[in-house]
């Protein structure tokens, strides 16, 4: 477990205590963890199961029921293709396909090194710039599949 998560394991106890008596406590604690780590690691879910005396099976029922929760760590660079009508018609699928080809992953997946993940978003309100790609929330306008290698190359520390 990375150090950051270790600290959290201790915090889980705190968070668990904080929400213990409240209705829907489990979901609040999970929200807190998702908010802080960007995902809910299995170790934390196990710890929580002990602390709150909730079966692990129940925790995963909740985690997989809501799209909000992630079970894998978020990638360093989250690349999202806009699937709003304008962007879609102007070629988001082709752009995502190119990202996928170069990274060797499909939409919804993360590269094994944890550097990139590929997702989609709904209209982000920049239809005039369509097609739009977001890199960690930053808008890239009028993207074409040719630009993809360049966008990836820019993703360095």
């Amino acid at each position, binding site marked *: 477990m990375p150090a950051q998560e270790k600290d959290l394991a201790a915090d889980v106890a705190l968070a668990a205590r904080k929400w213990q008596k409240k209705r829907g406590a489990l979901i609040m604690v999970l929200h807190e963890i998702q908010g802080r780590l960007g995902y809910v690691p299995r170790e934390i879910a196990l710890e929580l199961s002990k602390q709150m005396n909730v*079966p692990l*099976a129940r925790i*995963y*029922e909740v*985690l*997989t*029921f809501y799209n909000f929760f992630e079970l894998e760590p978020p990638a360093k660079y989250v690349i999202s293709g806009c699937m709003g009508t304008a962007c879609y018609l102007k070629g988001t699928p082709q752009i995502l396909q190119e990202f996928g080809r170069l990274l060797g992953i499909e939409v919804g997946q993360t590269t094994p090194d944890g550097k990139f993940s590929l997702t989609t978003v709904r209209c982000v309100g920049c239809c005039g710039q369509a097609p739009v790609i977001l890199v960690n929330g930053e808008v890239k306008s009028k993207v074409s599949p040719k630009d993809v290698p360049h966008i990836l190359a820019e993703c360095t520390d």
Partner: protein
Amino acid sequence: MAGTAIRTIRAKLNGIEVEVPEGTTILAAAEQVHLKIPTLCKHPDLPPTAACGICIVRVKGTSQMPRACCTPLEEGMEIVTHDPEIVEIRRKVLELILSKHPNECLTCGRNGTCELQRLASDFSIREQSLPYIVPDLPVDQSTRTIVLEPRKCIACGRCLTVCQDLQNVWALSFLERGIDTRMAPAGDILLADSPCISCGQCSAHCPTGAIFEYDETEKAWELLRDPDLHCVVQIAPAVRVAIGEAFGYPPGTNLTGKLYAALRYMGFDTVFDTNFGADVTIMEEGTEFVKRFQENQGELPLITSCCPAWVDFMEKYHSDMIEHFSSCKSPHEIVGVLTKTYYCEKRGLDPSKVRVVSIMPCTAKKYEIQRSDDMFASGHQDVDLSLTTRELARMIKQAGIDFASLPEGDADPMLGLYTGAGTIFGTSGGVLEAAFRTAHKLLTGEEFDAIEFHPARGLHGVKEARISVLGKEVRVAVAHGMGHVEEVLDRVRAAKESGDEPAYHMIEVMACPGGCIGGGGQPYGITDSVRKQRAAGLYRDDREREFRRSHENPYVQTLYASYLGKPLSERAHRLLHNSYKPRPTYRR
């Protein structure tokens, strides 16, 4: 319920008048007047999950179409259970389920017993009318006791209710939602890494082939085919009163003699009976109890250990109870180890050429035969293969034996003759009753005259009783269904913490509701009525036995006189006892 006046509801079903207590579902009311509304997700053992929609009916004169399994009948309601439109809707429901279900009946573990298959047949489904989308999910055989095949899951929710509520194990849950809903062990791990205790109750309740026993019939045939092997078989108490259901007999019919004969037809060289092992268990456990009760050697209460699913549950969830557990092995392990030592010695057989197959009502026994080094006490694996009642029924059919007309046979008495005490091991309360019959003699020197101990019998989740022996009060409890065990253990812990007298002196626990007669490997169609009939079959067998107390079994007496010495002797300890250890609840 005494004291509370329950209102009577008057209503009409298809024009037939019914009177039922308030709260009765339309489904239950219909049964009273001989109407059979089709169901799929609803199981008689379980509260409705209302997942499938096949049980819809019509409230006459309205547009309402409630689900009969979960809707209470109301005063003055007029219900139509069948009309052309209702039948058409039910057929649509089925077609929708079938469009997501693999078309693999011929090679499925539930071919011929599947509830979905039966409905498809009843509703004359002749073609695939909707586009076919079957999820691609892997088969999980990791436990080698039960198999999960989530592709065949119709999301009825029965197994979850069973595993979470009835058994309180929480190995299974639904992941995701809507059309993507799928059954999976605790957060998508292998079942073997989950808290699963292999009780098999999920497999006994699943309507389809999504959960079934790990089939080892082929391994059994391989052993029987090998001319160099001496194959020994034993049957558990609960098997004899249930296997008939697979051949059209009513539940509870005692088919011991036919089973012995069928096993010999199949090619087994020696036929023993696990009931003999149960008699030996009682000699050991009874003596253990007396030592703890009278001589303060060891913790009280003494907790029974003959159910491997219960042992697994204790090791995973309640390992503070280890000291309370009887160290005695379960009856089939005892027959196994005695076969490869005592029997081989007396018969001049080489134990490395002997194989022991157990026929059990149980899926957890498949796990037990390798659960620790203690299961190899003979120097070989004491029991080589454990098959469920369902597997044996199929083997008898494969062998081409006409079970119905088969004359009765005998067991080999050396490890095969049994008493009434041994046979009632198969039902909840039976182990405690059998132990008491022998412990009474050990404690007082006199026989327990009544023989029968009725407070231990029946289907109540927790049964308690107090008996006076030599002026001392003996407190006992019986729990069955893992969901009931916590309350009993909590009482034990509370008494311990406050330094009081022990809450109980002896506790019997069996993982399956009703005990092994309701085991996870028994023929399908379990309900409380079936449980009662099977238990009655064992109690009848008990009454008809020449001997009804384990210590009266002449072959048990010979075993001790010529081989083991006394109960709890050094040799008895080495062969018949075992130890426990805490195990992680989650392995991942």
